[in-house]
């Protein structure tokens, strides 16, 4: 059994103090034989050393964390507002033969802006942390709590755009898009109800935003596919 602090001899305590004094340097890679020796002799100090080494090792191996997906949408909107980006790039630009889809790209950008607006409506506190001169604020300053209908209107606009062209799609592709949009509409409706009933439900909020982002992507993809 380990001994308690009360029966620890005074001599050993002074050795422990010396150990403490030198421990920092030892952990910094400096040569401190007395630290190593004491750790071999004193179980209490050996535990301290082992713990600190374990903490250092675990800290150096911490995995990277993923930021929320909305971060890119926010950034993209700000970059566009500041005029830092030029032409948006869509998938079809990888394939020269699909250049006729080009008109769809601004629609996608619009959807992204809409989503960004929606995100910031949901998290108004975030704006306070940005510098006043930041154009994100300028871009989104008019966005208040009542912008949610605006967002819905923008997505509806995309949907209307798609509905007007949907007939031109290959029937099988059209059916796939219809089914996915129905699923996303259901999830938006359900999450919105949850968020309205319980605004603190962050998971439902995340699902809601993800569903909006996916819906915009699906609509953009569908508009690109209209020949």
């Amino acid at each position, binding site marked *: 059994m380990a001994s308690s602090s009360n029966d620890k001899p005074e001599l050993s305590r002074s050795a422990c103090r010396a150990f403490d004094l030198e421990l920092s340097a030892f952990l910094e890679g400096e040569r401190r034989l007395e630290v190593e020796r004491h750790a071999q002799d004193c179980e209490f100090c050996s535990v301290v050393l082992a713990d600190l080494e374990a903490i250092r090792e675990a800290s150096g*191996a911490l*995995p990277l964390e*993923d930021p929320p997906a909305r971060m890119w949408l926010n950034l993209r909107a700000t970059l566009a507002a500041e005029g830092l980006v030029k032409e948006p790039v869509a*998938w079809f630009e*990888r*394939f*020269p*033969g*699909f250049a006729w889809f080009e008109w769809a790209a601004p629609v996608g950008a619009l959807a992204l802006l809409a989503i960004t607006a929606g995100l910031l409506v949901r998290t108004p506190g975030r704006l306070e942390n940005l510098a006043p001169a930041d154009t994100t604020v300028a871009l989104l300053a008019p966005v208040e709590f009542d912008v949610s209908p605006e967002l819905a209107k923008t997505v509806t606009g995309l949907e209307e755009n798609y509905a007007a062209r949907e007939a031109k799609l*290959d*029937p*099988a*592709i059209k*059916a*796939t*898009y219809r*089914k*996915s949009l129905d*699923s*996303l509409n*259901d*999830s938006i409706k*359900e*999450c919105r109800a*949850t968020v309205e009933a*319980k605004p*603190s*439900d*962050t*998971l*439902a909020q995340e*699902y809601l935003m*993800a*569903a909006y982002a*996916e819906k915009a992507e*699906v609509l953009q*993809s569908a508009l690109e*596919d209209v*020949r």
Partner: protein
Amino acid sequence: MRAPGSYLKATNCHLLKKPWYRILLVFLPISLLAATDPVQTAKVFEFQTSSAPTITISNLSGQVTVRSWDKDSVRAACTPSSPHVEVDAEPMPASGRADRVQFLTHILDPSVTGEAAKADYMLSVPVGASLEIRNRQGHVQVEGLTGETWVQSVGGSITVVDPSGHLDVHSIGGDVEIDRPAGHVEASSINGSLKFVDPTSTKIRGTTTSGRIIYEGDFAPGGEYVLSAYSGDLDILCPASASFEIHAQSVKGRLDNGVDVIRNQHDATPRGATSLFGTHNTGKARLDLRSYSGTIRLRTMR
């Protein structure tokens, strides 16, 4: 009464003994078929490439199969389904060994849809090739590549077997299956299911809205596995020796845990959510499982 087929036997039996006539009998039906529907014939392309070229395919619909081989060249057999479909291939640079080969399906008559707008692709590519495939309808199958693979589909299913490079696969309506991936994986679908079998990857992210997510296999030490479904279920089947920290959460669904997990005391999960936050064995991998209204099931293999 004469038995069916016996007429041929009775009248032509002496001719069949002649080799040239046998050949004629074999090739006549094929050539007749070709004459009635000439576009059924595969168009074959062959290009000398680098050991790690980028291959892009843009196709409206059809089956796309890409397999690796141990040659620094690309061979593609492309079969359009009708005269309204044309397949084009372009190596870059045009002479010498290509770093990039683009395949593109042209629909000559925009009113053509369905079966008449299909083109099937069968490719053999260098092991180190990277792929960029957009195939809106039809199955895509990729086997044994070490390069990066990007596949996007609208309604088609996607199966990737033994990929060791980075994988980025998305289908709106189709199922996605990835067998034995070794590189990082990003997979998503809206209505389709996602299935991961025996991965050795250290990072897998999978999201689906209404599809199911199935994970069968172990988790690599230090790996991160983020799987999220909206209304679909999540089924995790791992060996009893699997070592992971888990954060599983469902807003309105159920959590069905058949794995011995020691719950973590710093559970910051919002109240009301069905959740599990803990460690199995020594917690070497990290699992983040989420479903809004589906069931999250955890089981160990027998």
